[in-house]
């Protein structure tokens, strides 16, 4: 096995041997990120002005303006990504993280992207959804030769269509996407656009899924369906930052799905409209209010709403298994199974054994028991009122009256006005009238009449 350090050495060695210092100087500087928290928006230092996005637990790649061309440098390489505090995954990504940095340009920009391959195998980058010359589409073998380890390729095209895009490899794509290679791309409109409204806060995130065996760190690249980590930008709750906005902000959230299943993304507290897809802006006449939008595989949705309700509002995938971390899908249901007297017997053979699941699985959110190394509890996270009992694709939209413009920091838990929270009823409740709870008696004689087929009359 080649170690991660070796990959770096390999890349450096090839670059030193094959590219002259002058040519190296001609490349834009490599900018790398070593943190997994949400970076503040990158205000454009040059070029056409625009209102930058905030990548959830991510960042925007700085560029170099050279003779009127925006030049970016992406490095495909192995990375260590913190999925949540307590768990790090060995992934592949770009410029130090997975997903890679967000690329932000303006409609009409000429963009040049240098792609250096520091992976142990070849790669390419496909610019999902973009209008571009065929030879820039990045499909290995079809539109270009694959970029071999150590090589740098240059992509160049004009960002013609404003909207929401992503990038990902199109070479050994199954492996490389299972390893976390993907990134976000936003092309801002160059001026007022009839279908693209200006917003106060513009968030973006990719949906991804990994199958990391508990106790290990590298995803199983051959898993097709049974993933155990469902993530926003390669982060799982409680590792996902909250979306912090000011009351009455117009908010846009752009979501792209590079997993292998659909995700109904759901927002509490407010309705939104889908204002665009990776195919472009949605005509206003075609928009309708929603609180959940399903994002199919390989699709992107941008949702917009006015954050006019103060509070801490859940924002998550509505598939309940996708708001869990690693769990055993084959574990039998223990609800209603009385383990009295038995748990002690088992504990004699297995010290530290504790009966679980007898009343449901919420115990899991409370108990802190040793887990395999580098493994997130199935359900975890704490809120102001106790365990949140979540994981995976879950975070919180925090709407605050006093959140300053341009301030994306976490304001803490919402202080609910008195009398506006569900509360304990102190009085007595009469027993409900209920049917007998006994299991159906299988010995009851039930007359079953079986009509034997007679002849072939039916034919």
């Amino acid at each position, binding site marked *: 096995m080649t170690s991660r350090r070796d990959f770096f050495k390999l890349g450096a060695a090839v670059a030193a041997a094959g590219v002259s210092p002058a040519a190296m100087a001609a490349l834009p500087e490599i900018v790398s990120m070593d943190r997994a928290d949400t970076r503040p928006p990158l205000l454009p230092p040059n070029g056409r002005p625009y209102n930058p996005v905030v990548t959830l637990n991510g960042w925007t790649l700085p560029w170099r303006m050279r003779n009127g061309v925006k030049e970016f440098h992406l490095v495909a390489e192995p990375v260590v990504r913190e999925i949540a505090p307590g768990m790090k995954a060995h992934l592949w990504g770009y410029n130090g993280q997975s997903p890679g940095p967000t690329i932000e340009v303006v409609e009409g920009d000429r963009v040049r992207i240098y792609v250096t391959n520091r992976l142990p195998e070849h790669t390419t980058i496909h610019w999902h959804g973009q209008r571009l010359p065929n030879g820039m589409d990045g499909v290995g073998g079809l539109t270009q030769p694959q970029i071999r380890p150590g090589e740098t390729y240059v992509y160049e095209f004009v960002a013609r269509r404003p909207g929401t895009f992503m990038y990902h490899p199109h070479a050994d794509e199954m492996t490389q996407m299972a390893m976390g290679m993907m990134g976000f791309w936003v092309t801002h409109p160059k001026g007022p656009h009839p279908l693209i409204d200006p917003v106060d806060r513009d968030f973006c995130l990719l949906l991804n899924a990994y199958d990391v065996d*508990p*106790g290990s760190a590298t995803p199983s690249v051959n898993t097709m369906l049974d993933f155990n980590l469902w993530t926003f930008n390669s982060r799982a709750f409680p590792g996902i930052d909250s979306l912090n906005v000011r009351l009455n902000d117009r908010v846009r959230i752009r979501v792209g799905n590079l997993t292998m299943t659909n995700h109904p993304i759901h927002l509490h507290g407010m309705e939104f409209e889908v204002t665009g897809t990776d195919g472009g802006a949605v005509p206003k006449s075609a928009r309708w209010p929603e609180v959940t939008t399903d994002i199919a595989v390989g699709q992107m949705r941008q949702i917009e709403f006015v954050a006019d309700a103060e509070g801490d509002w859940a924002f998550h995938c509505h598939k309940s298994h996708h708001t869990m971390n*690693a*769990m*055993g899908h*084959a*574990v*039998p*249901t*223990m*609800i*209603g*199974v*009385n*383990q009295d007297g*038995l748990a002690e*017997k*088992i504990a*004699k*053979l*297995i010290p*530290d*054994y*504790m*009966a*679980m*699941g007898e009343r449901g*699985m919420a115990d*899991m959110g409370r*108990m802190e*028991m*040793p*887990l*395999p190394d580098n*493994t997130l*509890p*199935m359900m975890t996270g704490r809120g102001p009122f106790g365990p949140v009992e979540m994981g995976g694709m879950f975070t919180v939209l925090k709407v605050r009256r006093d959140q300053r413009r341009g301030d994306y920091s976490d304001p803490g838990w919402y202080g609910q006005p008195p009398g506006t929270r569900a509360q304990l009823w102190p009085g007595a409740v009469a027993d409900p009238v209920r049917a007998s709870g006994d*299991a159906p008696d299988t010995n009851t004689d039930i007359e079953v009449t079986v009509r034997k087929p007679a002849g072939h009359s039916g034919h």
Partner: protein
Amino acid sequence: MPACPVSRRLLALTLASASLLGGCATFSPDGGFGAIQSETAARAGRDVVWSRDDATRAQTRARVEALLAHPLSADDAVQIALLNNPGLQARFNALGLAEADWVAARRLPNPGVSIGRLTRGSEVEWDRSLHLNLAWLLTMPLRAGIEARLFEQTRRALVLDVLRLAADTRKAWIAAVAAIQSEAYQRQAMDAAAAGAELAARMARAGNWSKLKEAREQAFHADAALAVARAGQSRLQARERLVRLLGLEHPDTLQLPERLPDLPAALPSLPDVEQRAMDSRIDLQMVRLQADALAKNLGLARRTRFINVLELGAISNASNEVPLQRGYEISFELPLFDWGQSRVVAAESRYRQMLERARQTAVDARSEVREACAIRQSQYAVARQLRDELVPLRQRISEENLYRYNGMLISVFELLADAREQIAAVNAAIAAQRDYWLADADLQMALAGSPGPAVLTPLSPASAASAAGAH
């Protein structure tokens, strides 16, 4: 086995003449038992007692009872067998008979009728004759010599019997203790299966589980219960075998420890074990005595040199002057005689026959001790591997599985199946530990004499997989 070349038992009906009785020939006070005692003490480190009278019997009984008051160690078990095994006590009487013959042979005779028996191989010849005092007197030294050697042979055969009983007892003790341990672990495995079956039944009652899954857990339980029954039988058999060797009338008094002794920290090295066997094996000493006796019987007196019987063939074909080239030499030497002078072809043939038989015994002895040594070494490695690697690994696996259970990644049934596998691994380690101690006992025996057909102890550690009944 070839009988003694000349085995003669004389039953003389003496017609009495007190004056002719020499004061020189009397029974020794210990019946020749002292030599057996000292030899046993030197080789087995235990005391052997011949309970010929009530006083001794009472003494040994008291000693046996004292030893039985506590859980018995292997050494104590051997000690009890040497004091109390009825078969051994019976065999000691052969000593009395041999000494009687020897003493009779040294006694000045009275005229009378004698009945003699001559044995050559399977041929037995009886002769009845009237002895004259003169003839008796003339042949007395020869007969006394023969009977002395027979007495000596008997003594050595008895030492071998004692040592073999010691080895058998030690092995029976090891097997009995290991069977106790094994049964205890099988019982734990059954407890795990019982918990699984009980939980399965409760789950089925709650409507959470199918009859199929419930039946599967019950089948594990039933299997485990059978394994416990079989382990109980094995324990009973092993214990009864030990009881027989100890000669106990009341087996209830026997208490055994719960565990085998630990493996030694390092395998005790045995340098030159084959040569040691050549020097110390009692069967080889008996061969030497037989050679000596045969030579005397054949009237061979002039020893020319000694030959290493292990190289009998090589020497026959090689020139006497050329020394045989060997890195190191294992030797078992017997005298060679000057055939030229004796010129008795039959004598030479018989002596050569004896030499070949001696070679057979020596070759067998070397092979046996080599085999025992190698098996002990490999058994030690197996037992260490199980104890130091496999069992700790199974414990690690169990620990990791518990973490997985904590994370609701696996169910309690997988935890219980894993517990059964861990128990099976411990059981296999116990079996290997037992087999090491058995091999060790075999090696000690192989240094004294043939360990018998049981040298290849059945090595039957229950494999971790088969006993586990995994899902």
